[in-house]
Protein backbone atom coordinates (compact mmCIF):
# COMPACT_ATOMS: atom_id res chain seq x y z
CA UNK A 1 0.00 0.00 0.00
CA UNK A 2 1.22 3.48 -0.82
CA UNK A 3 0.54 6.41 1.52
CA UNK A 4 -1.93 7.84 -1.05
CA UNK A 5 -3.90 4.58 -1.14
CA UNK A 6 -3.93 4.47 2.65
CA UNK A 7 -5.04 8.11 2.74
CA UNK A 8 -7.98 7.25 0.48
CA UNK A 9 -9.08 4.44 2.79
CA UNK A 10 -9.02 6.82 5.75
CA UNK A 11 -11.18 9.27 3.79
CA UNK A 12 -13.68 6.57 2.81
CA UNK A 13 -13.80 4.57 6.04
CA UNK A 14 -12.78 7.10 8.70
CA UNK A 15 -16.28 8.53 9.12
CA UNK A 16 -17.86 5.14 9.65
CA UNK A 17 -15.13 3.97 12.01
CA UNK A 18 -15.54 7.18 14.03
CA UNK A 19 -19.32 6.74 14.11
CA UNK A 20 -18.97 3.29 15.66
CA UNK A 21 -16.26 4.36 18.09
CA UNK A 22 -18.49 7.18 19.36
CA UNK A 23 -21.22 4.66 20.14
CA UNK A 24 -18.77 2.28 21.83
CA UNK A 25 -17.00 4.83 24.03
CA UNK A 26 -19.91 7.29 24.39
CA UNK A 27 -17.78 10.38 23.89
CA UNK A 28 -16.97 12.37 20.73
CA UNK A 29 -13.56 13.61 21.83
CA UNK A 30 -12.34 10.29 23.16
CA UNK A 31 -13.50 8.58 19.97
CA UNK A 32 -11.70 11.14 17.77
CA UNK A 33 -8.47 10.76 19.75
CA UNK A 34 -8.74 6.97 19.62
CA UNK A 35 -9.30 6.99 15.87
CA UNK A 36 -6.25 9.25 15.44
CA UNK A 37 -4.23 6.69 17.42
CA UNK A 38 -5.55 3.86 15.24
CA UNK A 39 -4.73 5.79 12.06
CA UNK A 40 -1.15 6.32 13.29
CA UNK A 41 -0.78 2.56 13.86
CA UNK A 42 -2.34 1.82 10.44
CA UNK A 43 0.05 4.19 8.67
CA UNK A 44 2.95 2.21 10.08
CA UNK A 45 1.55 -1.31 9.62
CA UNK A 46 -0.23 -1.04 6.28
CA UNK A 47 2.63 0.58 4.42
CA UNK A 48 4.40 -1.97 2.28
CA UNK A 49 2.03 -4.79 3.24
CA UNK A 50 -1.47 -5.97 2.39
CA UNK A 51 -4.58 -4.32 3.74
CA UNK A 52 -6.52 -6.10 6.47
CA UNK A 53 -9.57 -7.92 5.04
CA UNK A 54 -11.94 -5.35 6.54
CA UNK A 55 -10.09 -2.03 7.10
CA UNK A 56 -13.13 -0.44 8.74
CA UNK A 57 -13.44 -3.18 11.38
CA UNK A 58 -9.67 -3.08 11.86
CA UNK A 59 -9.78 0.68 12.57
CA UNK A 60 -12.71 0.22 14.96
CA UNK A 61 -11.01 -2.57 16.89
CA UNK A 62 -7.63 -0.89 17.17
CA UNK A 63 -9.37 2.41 17.99
CA UNK A 64 -11.43 0.75 20.71
CA UNK A 65 -8.29 -0.71 22.31
CA UNK A 66 -6.63 2.69 22.10
CA UNK A 67 -9.65 4.26 23.80
CA UNK A 68 -9.44 1.70 26.60
CA UNK A 69 -5.73 2.53 27.00
CA UNK A 70 -6.55 6.22 27.20
CA UNK A 71 -9.27 5.62 29.79
CA UNK A 72 -6.93 3.45 31.86
CA UNK A 73 -4.31 6.20 31.84
CA UNK A 74 -6.96 8.68 32.92
CA UNK A 75 -8.06 6.46 35.81
CA UNK A 76 -4.50 6.41 37.04
CA UNK A 77 -4.45 10.20 36.97
CA UNK A 78 -7.90 10.93 38.33
CA UNK A 79 -9.09 8.44 40.92
CA UNK A 80 -12.24 10.48 41.54
CA UNK A 81 -13.91 9.55 38.29
CA UNK A 82 -13.03 5.90 38.62
CA UNK A 83 -16.55 4.59 38.80
CA UNK A 84 -17.65 6.51 35.73
CA UNK A 85 -14.61 5.41 33.77
CA UNK A 86 -15.15 1.84 34.82
CA UNK A 87 -18.58 1.84 33.28
CA UNK A 88 -17.12 3.27 30.09
CA UNK A 89 -14.48 0.55 30.02
CA UNK A 90 -17.13 -2.15 30.29
CA UNK A 91 -19.07 -0.62 27.41
CA UNK A 92 -16.04 -0.26 25.22
CA UNK A 93 -14.71 -3.74 25.83
CA UNK A 94 -18.03 -5.43 25.06
CA UNK A 95 -17.78 -7.50 21.87
CA UNK A 96 -17.89 -5.18 18.88
CA UNK A 97 -20.33 -5.99 16.13
CA UNK A 98 -18.35 -4.87 13.10
CA UNK A 99 -20.79 -6.11 10.46
CA UNK A 100 -21.66 -3.64 7.73
CA UNK A 101 -25.24 -3.11 8.97
CA UNK A 102 -24.08 -2.19 12.46
CA UNK A 103 -21.54 0.27 11.06
CA UNK A 104 -24.17 1.75 8.72
CA UNK A 105 -26.52 2.31 11.64
CA UNK A 106 -23.74 4.09 13.49
CA UNK A 107 -23.12 6.35 10.49
CA UNK A 108 -26.79 7.34 10.44
CA UNK A 109 -26.64 8.03 14.19
CA UNK A 110 -23.64 10.27 13.62
CA UNK A 111 -25.33 12.20 10.79
CA UNK A 112 -28.53 12.76 12.79
CA UNK A 113 -26.54 13.86 15.85
CA UNK A 114 -24.46 16.37 13.87
CA UNK A 115 -27.65 17.75 12.28
CA UNK A 116 -29.56 17.98 15.57
CA UNK A 117 -32.00 20.93 15.49
CA UNK A 118 -30.66 22.16 18.84
CA UNK A 119 -27.62 23.40 16.87
CA UNK A 120 -27.68 26.53 14.73
CA UNK A 121 -27.74 25.58 11.05
CA UNK A 122 -24.14 26.66 10.39
CA UNK A 123 -22.97 24.65 13.40
CA UNK A 124 -24.77 21.62 11.93
CA UNK A 125 -22.94 22.15 8.64
CA UNK A 126 -19.55 22.60 10.34
CA UNK A 127 -19.99 19.53 12.58
CA UNK A 128 -21.08 17.42 9.60
CA UNK A 129 -18.12 18.50 7.45
CA UNK A 130 -15.67 17.88 10.28
CA UNK A 131 -17.06 14.66 11.71
CA UNK A 132 -19.01 12.88 8.96
CA UNK A 133 -16.95 14.04 5.95
CA UNK A 134 -13.65 14.02 7.83
CA UNK A 135 -12.51 17.47 6.67
CA UNK A 136 -9.82 19.01 8.86
CA UNK A 137 -10.73 21.92 11.12
CA UNK A 138 -8.66 24.17 8.82
CA UNK A 139 -10.66 23.04 5.77
CA UNK A 140 -13.98 23.65 7.56
CA UNK A 141 -12.73 27.07 8.68
CA UNK A 142 -11.95 27.95 5.06
CA UNK A 143 -15.46 26.96 3.97
CA UNK A 144 -16.87 29.43 6.51
CA UNK A 145 -14.24 32.12 5.94
CA UNK A 146 -13.28 32.18 9.61
CA UNK A 147 -9.97 31.57 11.32
CA UNK A 148 -8.96 28.04 12.27
CA UNK A 149 -8.99 29.04 15.95
CA UNK A 150 -12.52 30.40 15.74
CA UNK A 151 -13.72 27.22 14.00
CA UNK A 152 -11.91 24.99 16.53
CA UNK A 153 -13.73 26.88 19.31
CA UNK A 154 -17.09 26.51 17.56
CA UNK A 155 -16.60 22.76 17.08
CA UNK A 156 -15.41 22.34 20.66
CA UNK A 157 -18.51 24.09 22.01
CA UNK A 158 -20.75 21.96 19.80
CA UNK A 159 -19.16 18.73 21.01
CA UNK A 160 -19.47 19.94 24.59
CA UNK A 161 -23.15 20.60 23.99
CA UNK A 162 -23.64 17.04 22.72
CA UNK A 163 -22.23 15.71 25.96
CA UNK A 164 -23.59 18.23 28.49
CA UNK A 165 -27.07 18.68 27.05
CA UNK A 166 -27.54 14.95 26.50
CA UNK A 167 -28.12 15.07 22.73
CA UNK A 168 -28.92 11.42 21.97
CA UNK A 169 -26.73 9.36 19.66
CA UNK A 170 -29.72 7.93 17.84
CA UNK A 171 -31.73 7.92 14.67
CA UNK A 172 -35.02 9.55 15.71
CA UNK A 173 -38.09 7.38 15.83
CA UNK A 174 -41.32 7.43 13.84
CA UNK A 175 -43.01 10.84 14.01
CA UNK A 176 -39.75 12.68 14.75
CA UNK A 177 -37.95 11.08 11.80
CA UNK A 178 -39.53 13.06 8.93
CA UNK A 179 -38.78 16.58 10.22
CA UNK A 180 -35.30 15.49 11.32
CA UNK A 181 -34.55 13.94 7.92
CA UNK A 182 -35.66 17.21 6.29
CA UNK A 183 -33.11 18.97 8.50
CA UNK A 184 -30.35 16.56 7.47
CA UNK A 185 -31.14 17.07 3.77
CA UNK A 186 -31.20 20.85 4.27
CA UNK A 187 -27.68 20.67 5.74
CA UNK A 188 -26.45 18.58 2.80
CA UNK A 189 -28.01 21.03 0.33
CA UNK A 190 -26.44 23.99 2.16
CA UNK A 191 -23.02 22.37 1.80
CA UNK A 192 -23.75 21.88 -1.90
CA UNK A 193 -25.01 25.40 -2.65
CA UNK A 194 -21.93 26.93 -1.05
CA UNK A 195 -19.85 24.69 -3.32
CA UNK A 196 -21.98 25.58 -6.38
CA UNK A 197 -21.83 29.37 -5.98
CA UNK A 198 -19.61 30.58 -3.17
CA UNK A 199 -20.87 33.42 -0.97
CA UNK A 200 -17.75 35.50 -1.45
CA UNK A 201 -14.15 35.41 -2.50
CA UNK A 202 -12.17 34.93 -5.70
CA UNK A 203 -13.58 31.59 -6.84
CA UNK A 204 -17.07 31.02 -8.23
CA UNK A 205 -17.18 27.40 -7.07
CA UNK A 206 -15.78 25.19 -4.37
CA UNK A 207 -15.89 21.80 -6.05
CA UNK A 208 -14.67 20.03 -2.90
CA UNK A 209 -17.80 21.11 -0.98
CA UNK A 210 -20.09 20.13 -3.86
CA UNK A 211 -18.39 16.72 -3.98
CA UNK A 212 -18.77 16.22 -0.22
CA UNK A 213 -22.48 17.06 -0.43
CA UNK A 214 -22.98 14.52 -3.22
CA UNK A 215 -21.01 11.92 -1.27
CA UNK A 216 -23.21 12.55 1.79
CA UNK A 217 -26.42 12.28 -0.24
CA UNK A 218 -25.22 9.03 -1.82
CA UNK A 219 -24.42 7.71 1.63
CA UNK A 220 -27.78 8.64 3.12
CA UNK A 221 -29.57 7.27 0.04
CA UNK A 222 -27.75 3.96 0.57
CA UNK A 223 -28.52 3.98 4.30
CA UNK A 224 -32.22 4.91 3.91
CA UNK A 225 -33.10 3.53 0.48
CA UNK A 226 -36.33 4.18 -1.43
CA UNK A 227 -37.04 7.71 -0.21
CA UNK A 228 -38.12 10.13 -2.92
CA UNK A 229 -36.80 13.28 -1.27
CA UNK A 230 -33.29 11.80 -0.86
CA UNK A 231 -33.19 10.60 -4.49
CA UNK A 232 -34.54 13.99 -5.61
CA UNK A 233 -31.84 15.88 -3.72
CA UNK A 234 -29.07 13.61 -5.03
CA UNK A 235 -30.40 13.99 -8.59
CA UNK A 236 -30.63 17.78 -8.22
CA UNK A 237 -27.02 18.04 -7.07
CA UNK A 238 -25.68 15.60 -9.69
CA UNK A 239 -27.40 17.51 -12.51
CA UNK A 240 -26.22 20.92 -11.31
CA UNK A 241 -22.70 19.70 -10.64
CA UNK A 242 -22.54 18.02 -14.08
CA UNK A 243 -22.36 21.48 -15.67
CA UNK A 244 -19.33 22.51 -13.60
CA UNK A 245 -16.73 22.42 -16.41
CA UNK A 246 -18.95 24.64 -18.59
CA UNK A 247 -19.73 27.23 -15.93
CA UNK A 248 -16.45 29.13 -15.94
CA UNK A 249 -13.60 30.01 -18.27
CA UNK A 250 -10.04 28.93 -17.64
CA UNK A 251 -9.51 32.43 -16.23
CA UNK A 252 -12.28 31.97 -13.65
CA UNK A 253 -14.92 34.11 -15.38
CA UNK A 254 -18.57 33.09 -15.21
CA UNK A 255 -20.13 31.55 -18.32
CA UNK A 256 -23.91 31.88 -18.12
CA UNK A 257 -26.17 28.97 -19.05
CA UNK A 258 -27.10 30.52 -22.40
CA UNK A 259 -23.44 30.70 -23.45
CA UNK A 260 -22.21 27.39 -22.05
CA UNK A 261 -20.58 24.81 -24.31
CA UNK A 262 -22.83 21.84 -23.53
CA UNK A 263 -20.19 19.39 -24.73
CA UNK A 264 -18.27 20.24 -21.54
CA UNK A 265 -21.08 18.90 -19.36
CA UNK A 266 -20.48 15.56 -17.63
CA UNK A 267 -22.69 13.17 -19.64
CA UNK A 268 -22.25 10.25 -17.22
CA UNK A 269 -23.33 12.29 -14.25
CA UNK A 270 -26.32 13.68 -16.20
CA UNK A 271 -27.43 10.15 -17.11
CA UNK A 272 -27.26 9.13 -13.45
CA UNK A 273 -29.18 12.24 -12.40
CA UNK A 274 -31.90 11.72 -15.02
CA UNK A 275 -32.44 8.12 -13.90
CA UNK A 276 -32.71 9.21 -10.26
CA UNK A 277 -35.28 11.93 -11.11
CA UNK A 278 -37.42 9.37 -12.90
CA UNK A 279 -37.25 7.02 -9.92
CA UNK A 280 -37.99 9.83 -7.47
CA UNK A 281 -41.02 10.97 -9.48
CA UNK A 282 -42.34 7.41 -9.43
CA UNK A 283 -42.38 7.28 -5.61
CA UNK A 284 -45.84 7.33 -4.00
CA UNK A 285 -47.14 10.57 -2.51
CA UNK A 286 -46.88 14.08 -3.84
CA UNK A 287 -43.44 14.99 -5.25
CA UNK A 288 -41.04 16.68 -2.85
CA UNK A 289 -39.48 20.07 -3.47
CA UNK A 290 -36.02 18.64 -4.24
CA UNK A 291 -37.52 16.27 -6.80
CA UNK A 292 -39.36 19.06 -8.63
CA UNK A 293 -36.19 21.17 -8.64
CA UNK A 294 -34.32 18.15 -10.00
CA UNK A 295 -36.97 17.76 -12.72
CA UNK A 296 -36.30 21.37 -13.73
CA UNK A 297 -32.54 20.70 -13.81
CA UNK A 298 -33.29 17.58 -15.90
CA UNK A 299 -35.11 19.66 -18.55
CA UNK A 300 -32.08 21.97 -18.78
CA UNK A 301 -29.76 18.96 -19.01
CA UNK A 302 -31.81 17.41 -21.83
CA UNK A 303 -32.14 20.59 -23.91
CA UNK A 304 -29.98 20.75 -27.04
CA UNK A 305 -29.36 24.46 -26.48
CA UNK A 306 -30.63 27.42 -24.47
CA UNK A 307 -33.21 28.64 -26.99
CA UNK A 308 -34.78 25.21 -27.55
CA UNK A 309 -35.15 24.47 -23.84
CA UNK A 310 -38.67 23.44 -22.83
CA UNK A 311 -39.36 26.77 -21.09
CA UNK A 312 -43.16 26.35 -20.80
CA UNK A 313 -42.71 23.06 -18.93
CA UNK A 314 -40.04 24.59 -16.69
CA UNK A 315 -42.39 27.49 -15.89
CA UNK A 316 -45.09 24.93 -15.06
CA UNK A 317 -42.73 23.07 -12.70
CA UNK A 318 -41.91 26.36 -10.94
CA UNK A 319 -45.65 26.85 -10.44
CA UNK A 320 -45.77 23.40 -8.81
CA UNK A 321 -42.86 24.43 -6.58
CA UNK A 322 -44.64 27.64 -5.63
CA UNK A 323 -47.56 25.52 -4.41
CA UNK A 324 -45.57 22.93 -2.41
CA UNK A 325 -42.81 25.14 -0.97
CA UNK A 326 -43.54 28.80 -1.69
CA UNK A 327 -40.66 31.22 -1.21
CA UNK A 328 -39.67 34.62 -2.67
CA UNK A 329 -36.52 33.06 -4.19
CA UNK A 330 -38.62 30.56 -6.13
CA UNK A 331 -40.93 33.41 -7.22
CA UNK A 332 -37.88 35.23 -8.57
CA UNK A 333 -36.67 32.13 -10.45
CA UNK A 334 -40.18 31.64 -11.79
CA UNK A 335 -40.21 35.24 -13.06
CA UNK A 336 -36.88 34.71 -14.82
CA UNK A 337 -38.32 31.66 -16.62
CA UNK A 338 -41.53 33.53 -17.48
CA UNK A 339 -39.30 35.99 -19.35
CA UNK A 340 -38.38 33.13 -21.71
CA UNK A 341 -42.03 32.20 -22.29
CA UNK A 342 -43.95 35.49 -22.22
CA UNK A 343 -41.09 37.97 -22.58
CA UNK A 344 -39.09 40.19 -20.19
CA UNK A 345 -41.85 42.81 -19.72
CA UNK A 346 -44.21 40.26 -18.14
CA UNK A 347 -41.37 38.98 -15.91
CA UNK A 348 -40.56 42.51 -14.78
CA UNK A 349 -44.22 43.00 -13.73
CA UNK A 350 -43.98 39.83 -11.60
CA UNK A 351 -40.79 41.05 -9.92
CA UNK A 352 -42.26 44.51 -9.27
CA UNK A 353 -45.26 42.86 -7.62
CA UNK A 354 -42.97 40.63 -5.58
CA UNK A 355 -40.90 43.60 -4.41
CA UNK A 356 -44.02 45.62 -3.60
CA UNK A 357 -45.05 42.83 -1.22
CA UNK A 358 -41.72 43.25 0.56
CA UNK A 359 -40.36 39.85 -0.45
CA UNK A 360 -36.65 39.45 -1.26
CA UNK A 361 -35.53 42.54 0.63
CA UNK A 362 -31.73 42.36 0.57
CA UNK A 363 -31.61 39.23 -1.62
CA UNK A 364 -28.44 39.82 -3.60
CA UNK A 365 -29.51 38.24 -6.88
CA UNK A 366 -32.66 40.37 -7.20
CA UNK A 367 -30.95 43.41 -8.81
CA UNK A 368 -29.06 41.07 -11.16
CA UNK A 369 -32.25 39.44 -12.46
CA UNK A 370 -33.89 42.87 -12.80
CA UNK A 371 -30.84 44.20 -14.65
CA UNK A 372 -30.93 41.33 -17.14
CA UNK A 373 -34.62 41.91 -17.90
CA UNK A 374 -34.11 45.67 -18.34
CA UNK A 375 -31.14 45.03 -20.67
CA UNK A 376 -33.26 42.72 -22.83
CA UNK A 377 -36.01 45.36 -22.92
CA UNK A 378 -33.45 47.87 -24.26
CA UNK A 379 -33.85 50.11 -21.19
CA UNK A 380 -30.12 50.67 -20.90
CA UNK A 381 -30.02 53.44 -18.29
CA UNK A 382 -32.21 51.52 -15.85
CA UNK A 383 -30.25 48.34 -16.61
CA UNK A 384 -26.94 50.08 -15.85
CA UNK A 385 -28.30 51.26 -12.51
CA UNK A 386 -29.51 47.76 -11.66
CA UNK A 387 -26.11 46.21 -12.58
CA UNK A 388 -24.42 48.73 -10.27
CA UNK A 389 -26.81 47.75 -7.48
CA UNK A 390 -26.08 44.07 -8.23
CA UNK A 391 -22.33 44.75 -8.02
CA UNK A 392 -22.71 46.43 -4.66
CA UNK A 393 -24.83 43.55 -3.38
CA UNK A 394 -22.34 40.72 -4.02
CA UNK A 395 -19.03 39.82 -2.41
CA UNK A 396 -18.10 37.32 -5.11
CA UNK A 397 -15.41 38.58 -7.47
CA UNK A 398 -16.46 36.58 -10.60
CA UNK A 399 -20.01 37.99 -10.30
CA UNK A 400 -18.62 41.53 -10.01
CA UNK A 401 -16.60 40.96 -13.20
CA UNK A 402 -19.70 39.61 -14.98
CA UNK A 403 -21.70 42.73 -14.11
CA UNK A 404 -18.80 44.96 -15.21
CA UNK A 405 -18.78 43.19 -18.61
CA UNK A 406 -22.53 43.72 -18.95
CA UNK A 407 -22.23 47.42 -18.13
CA UNK A 408 -19.42 47.76 -20.70
CA UNK A 409 -21.66 46.11 -23.33
CA UNK A 410 -24.41 48.65 -22.60
CA UNK A 411 -22.12 51.65 -23.18
Amino acid sequence: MTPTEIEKIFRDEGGRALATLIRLVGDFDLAEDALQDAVAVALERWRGSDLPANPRAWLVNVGRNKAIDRVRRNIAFRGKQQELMHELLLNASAPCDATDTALDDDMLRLIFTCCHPSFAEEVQVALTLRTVCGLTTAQVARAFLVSEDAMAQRLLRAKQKIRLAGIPYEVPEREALEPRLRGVLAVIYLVFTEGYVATSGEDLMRPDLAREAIRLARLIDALMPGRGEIMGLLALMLLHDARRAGRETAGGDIVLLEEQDRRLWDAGQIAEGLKLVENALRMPGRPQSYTVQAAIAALHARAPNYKDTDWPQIAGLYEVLLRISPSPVIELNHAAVVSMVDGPARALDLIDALEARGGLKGYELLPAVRADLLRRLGRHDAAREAYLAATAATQLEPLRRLYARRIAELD
Partner: protein
Amino acid sequence: MQYLLMIYRNEAELGQMTADDRKKLTAEYGAFTQSIIQSGHFKAGDGLQPTTTATSVRVRDGKTLTTDGPFAETREQLGGYYLVEAKDLDTALGIAARIPGAKTGTIEVRPVMIYD
Protein backbone atom coordinates in the same frame (compact mmCIF):
# COMPACT_ATOMS: atom_id res chain seq x y z
CA MET B 1 -30.36 13.66 33.34
CA GLN B 2 -32.25 16.58 34.80
CA TYR B 3 -33.40 19.55 32.75
CA LEU B 4 -34.82 22.88 33.84
CA LEU B 5 -37.61 23.99 31.51
CA MET B 6 -38.01 27.75 31.90
CA ILE B 7 -41.27 29.24 30.67
CA TYR B 8 -40.96 32.69 29.13
CA ARG B 9 -44.02 34.58 27.95
CA ASN B 10 -45.23 38.13 27.44
CA GLU B 11 -46.71 39.38 30.73
CA ALA B 12 -48.55 42.25 29.10
CA GLU B 13 -50.40 39.88 26.77
CA LEU B 14 -51.12 37.55 29.66
CA GLY B 15 -52.60 40.45 31.63
CA GLN B 16 -55.11 41.09 28.85
CA MET B 17 -56.53 37.56 28.96
CA THR B 18 -60.21 37.14 29.74
CA ALA B 19 -61.18 35.34 32.93
CA ASP B 20 -62.44 32.42 30.85
CA ASP B 21 -59.15 32.07 28.95
CA ARG B 22 -57.22 32.28 32.18
CA LYS B 23 -59.31 29.50 33.68
CA LYS B 24 -58.73 27.37 30.60
CA LEU B 25 -54.96 27.93 30.74
CA THR B 26 -54.85 26.99 34.43
CA ALA B 27 -56.74 23.78 33.65
CA GLU B 28 -54.31 22.99 30.80
CA TYR B 29 -51.33 23.45 33.12
CA GLY B 30 -53.03 21.21 35.73
CA ALA B 31 -53.55 18.43 33.20
CA PHE B 32 -50.00 18.76 31.82
CA THR B 33 -48.45 18.64 35.32
CA GLN B 34 -50.50 15.57 36.18
CA SER B 35 -49.36 13.84 32.99
CA ILE B 36 -45.65 14.33 33.69
CA ILE B 37 -46.08 13.29 37.32
CA GLN B 38 -47.65 10.07 36.09
CA SER B 39 -44.95 9.47 33.46
CA GLY B 40 -42.28 9.90 36.13
CA HIS B 41 -40.59 12.93 34.54
CA PHE B 42 -41.73 15.54 37.09
CA LYS B 43 -39.25 16.64 39.77
CA ALA B 44 -40.55 20.13 40.60
CA GLY B 45 -42.45 23.00 39.04
CA ASP B 46 -43.98 26.34 39.95
CA GLY B 47 -45.45 29.47 38.48
CA LEU B 48 -43.96 32.85 39.39
CA GLN B 49 -45.58 36.17 40.30
CA PRO B 50 -45.10 38.81 37.56
CA THR B 51 -41.83 40.75 37.18
CA THR B 52 -43.52 43.82 38.75
CA THR B 53 -42.98 41.94 42.03
CA ALA B 54 -39.28 41.24 41.30
CA THR B 55 -36.30 42.67 43.18
CA SER B 56 -32.73 42.24 41.95
CA VAL B 57 -29.84 42.04 44.39
CA ARG B 58 -26.15 42.70 43.69
CA VAL B 59 -23.24 42.85 46.14
CA ARG B 60 -20.40 45.13 45.05
CA ASP B 61 -17.40 45.97 47.26
CA GLY B 62 -19.25 44.46 50.20
CA LYS B 63 -22.28 46.71 49.66
CA THR B 64 -25.66 45.27 48.87
CA LEU B 65 -27.57 47.04 46.11
CA THR B 66 -31.21 46.24 45.53
CA THR B 67 -33.12 47.38 42.48
CA ASP B 68 -36.78 47.24 41.66
CA GLY B 69 -37.56 44.90 38.78
CA PRO B 70 -36.09 41.92 36.94
CA PHE B 71 -32.43 41.29 35.97
CA ALA B 72 -33.05 42.26 32.34
CA GLU B 73 -35.87 43.98 30.50
CA THR B 74 -36.91 41.62 27.71
CA ARG B 75 -39.91 41.14 25.48
CA GLU B 76 -40.77 37.85 27.20
CA GLN B 77 -40.38 37.27 30.91
CA LEU B 78 -39.71 34.19 33.03
CA GLY B 79 -43.08 33.11 34.36
CA GLY B 80 -42.52 29.62 35.72
CA TYR B 81 -40.48 26.46 35.46
CA TYR B 82 -40.50 22.70 35.56
CA LEU B 83 -37.59 20.55 36.70
CA VAL B 84 -37.80 17.19 34.90
CA GLU B 85 -35.90 13.92 34.75
CA ALA B 86 -35.41 12.78 31.13
CA LYS B 87 -33.15 10.24 29.44
CA ASP B 88 -31.88 12.69 26.82
CA LEU B 89 -32.38 16.11 25.24
CA ASP B 90 -34.94 14.85 22.71
CA THR B 91 -37.17 13.60 25.54
CA ALA B 92 -36.77 16.92 27.38
CA LEU B 93 -37.58 18.89 24.21
CA GLY B 94 -40.64 16.69 23.69
CA ILE B 95 -41.89 17.49 27.21
CA ALA B 96 -41.14 21.20 26.72
CA ALA B 97 -43.21 21.27 23.53
CA ARG B 98 -46.21 20.00 25.51
CA ILE B 99 -46.09 22.83 28.10
CA PRO B 100 -49.20 24.99 27.43
CA GLY B 101 -47.06 28.17 27.45
CA ALA B 102 -45.00 26.88 24.48
CA LYS B 103 -47.90 27.80 22.16
CA THR B 104 -47.59 31.53 22.91
CA GLY B 105 -44.21 31.94 24.60
CA THR B 106 -40.81 30.24 24.61
CA ILE B 107 -39.50 27.38 26.71
CA GLU B 108 -35.76 27.47 27.37
CA VAL B 109 -34.42 23.97 28.07
CA ARG B 110 -31.21 23.79 30.12
CA PRO B 111 -29.44 20.66 31.38
CA VAL B 112 -28.78 20.74 35.12
CA MET B 113 -25.09 20.58 36.03
CA ILE B 114 -23.83 17.34 37.53
CA TYR B 115 -21.09 17.49 40.17
CA ASP B 116 -18.91 14.44 40.49
